[in-house]
């Protein structure tokens, strides 16, 4: 925000602009939001690979009904770590990285509001992640009570060890939470105060709307999780009894605090994904986003409603009837703004001129799978049905349709879509399409199979199961191994294209949006001159974007 750069800094920046970003920058403390964004995205992708390996181990154990690959404490540690890593070290921080990269560019700002704070938010994460992973090497291993870490089960640790897996789990999560809060302050401030002249709220791309809503949720709800974790830590290591039932504590309070954050967390993860769909679908169908205003408002609406639905995770807990019915009603309300979005995406595609490049494939695939996940979500909100399938594989199937088939697919769409902008090079289209099909088909094989298992009553978090469930489990496991393999063409493509790919033009997709008006990759200060916004977003009818003078992107 301060524009009084010293002469030295300006020279420094200019020399950086000429050189482009060097590799060393990415491993060092840097306050450029673009460098930080890339740091986030690369680091979280490594955690995604680790989390994916753990998932494949889990699925390998579940190939057969007996427990024969990993012993039971290790199995419990595996699913605890898998869930924790995927949520807290993959999706949430990846979104933070993508938003970091894009938001200032999309609103015409030179950087985030607090660049130094931004860098600190990022640099908390690698130590926190390494700390979490280090618990694999403790004599008694990692935390084993699932990513919910419900007491009293999470308080059952070997009595003579102060440093145990659960302890480390709590400490790393608190650190990650601190990083998120700092990030949230930064995003909300940036979007509120740093928009370019003419960039009114209703000229903001929906992606910016979704980051804004998601980060507001972080600010409002994350403190509840932090409180729960700190109380849990006191119970675990310092002899308090907030949650210990045999000493007059109440484990249900923990559940309320935990889900008060962790339900909105679903939308902290999903809203940016919806934002990605809202950018990619119009660009590749050459239509303005249909019903832009309703979609923007629906984004805030989803965030607002999602604060009041947390008890749907506790329908089978000690939850009285009136509370079950109240939260059934609020949970179902979420379907209205979400429905608006799904209809708007579909109407954008209707009567369009579709270009099915890789980002579009991932976006359409993700949007379609979201409709499936949304439908099973409404089913789960119906209390009597939820009582049957709660804690079964039906729920695991449902949320993987959201976290993987929707959000992770959206993330891939985003990576391909903004790859030319970020790296200044084009990725290889054929490899991208291969990656799409290798992801889309196995993801459906893997996660669809979990629904019939859950309907039949197979419980989640089991390391062995009744032989009657084996059929679908084999299908799910084989699907998951293919899914693991699908990351290989992706990595090859991204690394290869980043190093050797053909140079990209500034706007290879002929997309609207300020980020496409600057060079690829953008200079240190994003824009030669701060743009003045005079047109609505998604201006695909404008000849500027549709009449091609420079088709030099065919290279």
């Amino acid at each position: 925000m301060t524009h009084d750069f010293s002469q030295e800094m300006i020279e420094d920046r200019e020399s950086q602009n000429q050189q482009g970003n060097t590799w060393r920058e990415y491993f060092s403390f840097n306050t450029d939001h673009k460098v930080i964004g890339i740091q986030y995205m690369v680091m979280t992708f490594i955690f995604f690979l680790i989390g994916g390996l753990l998932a494949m181990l889990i699925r390998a154990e579940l190939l057969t009904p007996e427990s024969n690959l990993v012993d039971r404490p290790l199995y419990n540690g595996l699913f605890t770590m898998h869930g924790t890593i995927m949520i807290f070290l993959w999706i949430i921080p990846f979104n933070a990285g993508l938003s970091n990269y894009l938001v200032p560019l999309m609103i015409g700002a030179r950087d985030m509001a607090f660049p130094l704070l931004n860098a600190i938010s990022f640099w908390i994460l690698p130590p926190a992640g390494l700390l979490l992973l280090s618990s694999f090497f403790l004599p008694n291993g990692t935390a084993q009570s699932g990513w919910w870490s419900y007491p009293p089960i999470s308080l059952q640790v070997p009595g003579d060890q102060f440093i145990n897996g659960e302890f480390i789990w709590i400490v790393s999560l608190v650190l990650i939470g601190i990083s998120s809060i700092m990030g949230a302050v930064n995003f909300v401030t940036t979007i509120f105060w740093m928009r370019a002249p003419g960039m009114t709220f209703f000229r903001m791309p929906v992606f910016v709307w979704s980051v804004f809503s998601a980060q507001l949720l972080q600010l409002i709800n994350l403190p509840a999780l932090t409180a729960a974790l700190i109380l849990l830590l006191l119970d675990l290591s310092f002899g308090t009894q907030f949650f210990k039932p045999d000493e007059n504590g109440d484990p249900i309070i923990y559940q309320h605090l935990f889900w008060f954050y962790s339900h909105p967390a679903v939308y902290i993860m999903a809203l940016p994904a919806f934002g990605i769909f809202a950018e990619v679908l119009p660009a590749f169908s050459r239509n303005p986003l249909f019903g832009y205003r309703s979609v923007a408002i629906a984004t805030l609406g989803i965030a607002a409603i999602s604060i009041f639905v947390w008890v749907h995770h506790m329908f089978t807990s000690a939850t009285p009837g009136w509370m079950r019915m109240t939260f059934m009603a609020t949970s179902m309300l979420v379907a209205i703004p979400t429905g608006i979005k799904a209809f708007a995406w579909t109407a954008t595609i209707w009567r369009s001129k579709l270009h099915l490049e890789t980002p579009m494939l991932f976006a359409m695939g993700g949007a379609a799978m979201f409709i499936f996940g949304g439908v099973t979500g409404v089913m789960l909100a119906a209390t009597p049905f939820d009582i049957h399938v709660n804690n079964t594989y039906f729920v695991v199937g449902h949320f993987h349709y959201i976290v993987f088939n929707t959000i992770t697919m959206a993330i891939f769409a985003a990576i391909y879509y903004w790859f030319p902008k970020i790296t200044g090079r084009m990725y290889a289209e054929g490899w991208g399409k291969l990656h799409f099909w290798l992801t889309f088909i196995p993801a459906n094989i893997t996660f669809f199979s979990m629904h019939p298992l859950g309907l039949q009553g197979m419980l989640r978090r089991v390391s062995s199961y009744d032989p009657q469930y084996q059929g679908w489990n084999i299908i799910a496991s084989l699907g998951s191994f293919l899914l693991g393999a699908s990351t290989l063409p992706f990595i090859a493509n991204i690394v290869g294209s980043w190093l050797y790919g053909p140079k990209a033009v500034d706007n290879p997709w002929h997309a609207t949006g300020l980020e496409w008006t600057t060079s690829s990759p953008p200079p240190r200060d994003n824009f030669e001159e701060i743009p003045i916004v005079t047109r609505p977003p998604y201006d695909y009818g404008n000849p500027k974007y549709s009449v091609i003078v420079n088709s030099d992107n065919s290279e």
Partner: protein
Amino acid sequence: MFSVFEYILIAVYVAVLLIVSRWMGLQAFSWMPPQATAEAQRVDDLFSFLVSIGAFILLGLIGVMVYAIAFHRAPPEDYTEGHPSRGDARLEILWTATPTLLVVWIALQSFNIYQQLNILGLNQIVHLHTPQQEAGGKGAGGRGNALFQMPLFESAPAVAATVSDAPKPASETIDVFVKQWDWSFRYPNNVTSNQLHLPINRSTRLNLQAQDVIHGFYVPEFRLKQDIIPGRKIDIVLTPIRPGKYRLKDSQFSGTYFSLMETDVYVESLAQYNQWLTQTTSSEQTPINQAVAENIQPPKTLFNSGWYTVTPAQPGIANKRKLNNDT
């Protein structure tokens, strides 16, 4: 924004969708395990309804996408716009109203069925509390005034008038004791066993009590599930209608040997049930607790972490005396 041809196309499409989604809804019954309680029938009706509506929405929207992929592809260098419309107030109202109506319909339907189930009684009594509080808590509404209830949730809003937490009276009451990793049941005549026997066609109240951590009562064929929270007494009332042998499972993750925490459930005629009750008093069976067995002799797995595990509590039968004075 539509031509006549498109209107006809949409009408035909919707008609086909209606037929297909209703058919899916009927199929849905066969995706579930057999219905072994009266409650299961209700839940399955709801599921069938949800599948019908869900299939309609899902196929409807995905159909449009597939249609676009089939018929609306642009030549590679054509970056002109598809349709110029940025919105259409009528359409937007339509698709806000549609999910709203659907959701209200689904919620009402679910509410109805929930009321018919009338399964749950929460005596939110903290374990160590005095007997008179416990007695007070068992009264109408079943809400004890223990310290640790969240006062916020105590004052129930208007719905409470229609959704009662006092379950319907049951003709049979069985105590269920659960701990890491063992189920045991105490019958009206004070017999304690590791098997759950239920007389058919009679509503039975299960009095659920956990000793150490949170567990869950779940028999897939019954469709009902209830967490068992240590320190709280929670009832569940169900009416078995189908004779047979089922598996009771622990539905809330409860630590190392969680997966082994299953036991047999028998639904049988009242005569058989009574006969079993009298037989069991005379012949004490020694159950094999799998968790205990595995704690002593772990199975050979490829990777052995040797990480910490909570030692399973002694089998229920050996603890019979202790169980009788309410753990």
